[in-house]
């Protein structure tokens, strides 16, 4: 079937210095694959995950908690701001600490500042 031999048009986010740029170098010249730029017709796309550059996958709730932690909020303050129980706030804080520790990035402020707005 001829259709099978048409090259697959792959759209890559090729932001300079990003993983897409490196991936484009690796995939250049691979038979049956044509890398296309943004705006061109494509069959598939590879885009970075929102938090992929952190190496940490956070839930939306954990992001909220992270921002408040970065502002120095206590568990009680986090609970009140997010409308959850102190127990639940503590649970989220614990899981965030574990996740950040697992990748050796325990500076919540640095992480939060990359993800959103910190009120100081």
């Amino acid at each position, binding site marked *: 079937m001829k259709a099978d031999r048409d090259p697959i048009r792959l759209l890559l986010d090729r932001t300079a210095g990003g993983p897409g740029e490196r991936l484009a170098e690796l995939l250049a010249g691979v038979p049956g694959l044509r890398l296309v730029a943004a705006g061109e017709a494509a069959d598939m796309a590879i885009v970075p995950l929102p938090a992929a550059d952190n190496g940490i996958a956070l839930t939306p709730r954990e992001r909220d908690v992270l921002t408040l*932690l*970065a502002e*120095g*909020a*206590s*568990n*009680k*303050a986090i609970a*009140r*701001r997010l409308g959850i129980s*102190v127990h639940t706030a*503590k649970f989220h*804080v614990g899981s*965030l*600490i*574990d996740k*950040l*520790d*697992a990748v050796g990035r*325990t*500076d*919540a*402020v*640095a992480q939060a*500042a*990359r993800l*959103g*707005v*910190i*009120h*100081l």
Partner: protein
Amino acid sequence: MAASVSLKQLTELSTALADLTAAAAASLVSVRSRRTRSSGFVWQDGLIVTADDALPDEDDLTVVLAGGETVPARIAGRDASTDIALLRVERAGLAPAPLATAAVRAGSLAVAVGCEDGTATVAFGAIARVAGPWRSLRGGEIDARIEFDGRLRRSGEGGLAIGVDGAAIGMAVFGPRRRVLVIPAATIARVAPKLASDGRIRRGYLGLGLHTVALDDERSAAMVMSVDASGPGAAAGVRQGDIITAWDGQPVAAVQALLRLLGPDSVGRTVRLALRRAGEPTEVALTVAEKPVSG
């Protein structure tokens, strides 16, 4: 190797550890609320230091002293950023725990002594890691990263990690994955007096919502995303969209640089903020306020 450990040496070690525990126990207390059980220790007469994270919201606490006497306690101050809370008890003649002044070394043996209903609880282990100063998730400055490899029971949180010389290395608390961290004696010595006098650790406040942005010349800075209309930033004339590039001449490369500058001593100070507004440099004088207490 000729050397082997004799029963006599083991007995001596065992006795020494038991003696160490007994000596420390006089300064340890259990901290109780309706729902929580943790430990604490006498910092000064009438003042108990305990782990903030283990304390409940409500100020309905009792403390069981060594020997079993129960006394009411109230929270004199708490600081979530260093996990240190201070309780006041109307009871004189309590023996303060001796806090270590020498630096602890990795590999040293230590006991973590807590208290349950007036009797000591003990975890035995080694100091597993000692590293330099670190910043807690909430921005607290902790004088050294000290980890203990013993198994601390829940109620032992807020008790003391004690070296074989009998001096307290610091307060035993839970870190990531329930690993035991030690809040160093030096941090307690710095924070507890402020909690005794002010009830809190003051933090500076700008009244600005900030986000780290890259500048066109490969530097980075902190962009003002929102302005608290009644905050010090608004009063100084900072506007949404301004980019803060320096604080008193010191470059600000990221939001966390500002957080570091907003320590207890910043409150009330007037600083020169260098801004980039619509691409043009400008400057404002901002008087740092105290961050409102948020529970």
